[in-house]
């Protein structure tokens, strides 16, 4: 067995055993639901006053279950990008920085197939974490919401799921950054840079068409009006970032030299 199947099998094992995965998985799966339910509870407790209360005003009213799941989607939209970005910084940048990437030359399973599989494994892992985080949020919400989950809450759950997946896909270009810079730290720097750039783009009103702003805005982080401004075009453009990023990485690894 050579090729994609082998590469996926090998990369899956490597990712299951990696320290980054062991740290990031519980953070994504447990922290997101805890944050969503906790922040909503805090907003509705009356304990918050001033700037804190203003920040969480959106969580203080409306259907409880819908608020829980919406909050989870807002956190996931950024968390999956950050987790996926750290994952590709580690899996692509570190082997290039420490010289292990050289061992992927001259193999029956080509190095670009390994790179492709590595992207898919990170993407699949982030998707699985998203599903688990949303499912746990729904379960927690169902346990504490007196009326259970209505249609609006289920719709918000679907949007949270999609936002998490889009956020994970947005991490794929950072595999290309890691390959180009050959440095995990430079990749993390670029990740922080794109988050700062996104803030600026949103401030000047370009968020609806800027892929790195779309998932957050779509889940309501910028308010109901900004969420309504996200159209199908913006969502499709955002979804296209992952395959484009993977295609670039595969090409980079095909042409890789001086390793």
């Amino acid at each position, binding site marked *: *067995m*050579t*090729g994609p199947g*082998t*590469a996926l*099998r*090998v990369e899956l*094992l*490597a990712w299951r*055993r*990696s*320290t980054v995965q062991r740290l990031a998985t519980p953070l994504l799966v447990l922290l997101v639901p805890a944050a969503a339910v906790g922040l909503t509870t805090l907003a509705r407790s009356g304990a918050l006053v001033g700037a804190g209360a203003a920040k969480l005003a959106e969580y203080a009213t409306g259907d409880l279950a819908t608020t829980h799941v919406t909050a989870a989607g807002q956190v996931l939209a950024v968390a999956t990008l950050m987790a996926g970005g750290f994952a590709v910084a580690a899996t692509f940048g570190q082997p290039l920085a*420490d*010289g*292990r990437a*050289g*061992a*992927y*030359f*001259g*193999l*029956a*399973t*080509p190095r670009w197939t*390994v790179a492709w599989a590595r992207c898919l494994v990170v993407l699949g892992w982030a998707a699985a974490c998203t599903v688990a985080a949303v499912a746990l949020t729904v379960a927690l919400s169902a346990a504490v919401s007196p009326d259970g989950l209505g249609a609006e809450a289920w719709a918000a759950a679907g949007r949270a799921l999609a936002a998490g997946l889009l956020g994970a896909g947005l991490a794929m270009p950072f595999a290309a950054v890691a390959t180009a810079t050959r440095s995990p730290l430079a990749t993390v720097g670029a990740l922080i840079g794109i988050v700062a750039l996104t803030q600026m783009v949103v401030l000047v009103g370009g968020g609806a068409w800027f892929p790195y702003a779309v998932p957050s805005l779509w889940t309501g982080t910028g308010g109901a009006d900004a969420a309504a401004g996200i159209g199908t075009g913006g969502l499709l453009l955002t979804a296209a970032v992952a395959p484009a990023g993977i295609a670039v990485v595969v090409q980079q690894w095909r042409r890789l*030299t*001086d*390793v």
Partner: protein
Amino acid sequence: MNPLTLDHLHHRFGDRPALAGLSLAVAPGEVVAMVGLNGAGKTTALRVLVGRLRPASGTARVLGADPSRMRPTTAHRFGHVVGVGLVSPDLTVSENVRTAALLHGVPRAEVADAGAVVVHRLDLDAWADARARTLSAGNAQRLGIACAVVHGPSVLVLDEPTSALDPRGVVLVRELVRSLADDGAAVLVSSHHLDEVARVADRVVVVHGGRSVGELAPGPEMERRFFARVLEADVAALEASAGSAA
């Protein structure tokens, strides 16, 4: 056709020439050792041979193929350790050799057996379930070699394969290299250990200033003969540059 050939390789890193017309070939069943001072161009040549570096000019061939664009059927017969081996620090020794076997194209049904054989052969049984990151430098080096030979390659390239090994490890690797060559593999090794080279190699090529400056017959007084050859090459180069200046 020789399974391993380097033909008039030239390459520079900035202003510094790394390869200046290096040529050599390794025949089936032959162990060739490249010896040279630090910066002579040995590792650069091996990186070209593995496909990790495209030379400015000249050609490298592994089983007749350009190493930077090797087909899976050719790569399946090739093994190498140049610098860090095909080892993931998060995986155990067993997992690493099985993973390497898969990536080298060993059929899944044969992976466990192939892995167990090579772990035993390099005396890594006691560490089979240990994570690679916990290994000593010597055991890590043996694991890298195990991952490079788990598929029984017919062409093998090793850069300083015994640099971190204890005397027992040196013997294990020497026996492994010799037995692969006896089975018909072409093996190219770079080393600083002239005594070790004398024991394992059929031919010893002296690399100096990015090119081959002659061969040494394996045997006694390798160190003296090595330095004599290097000095001879330096004197010849000085005379050539003085001649061209005049």
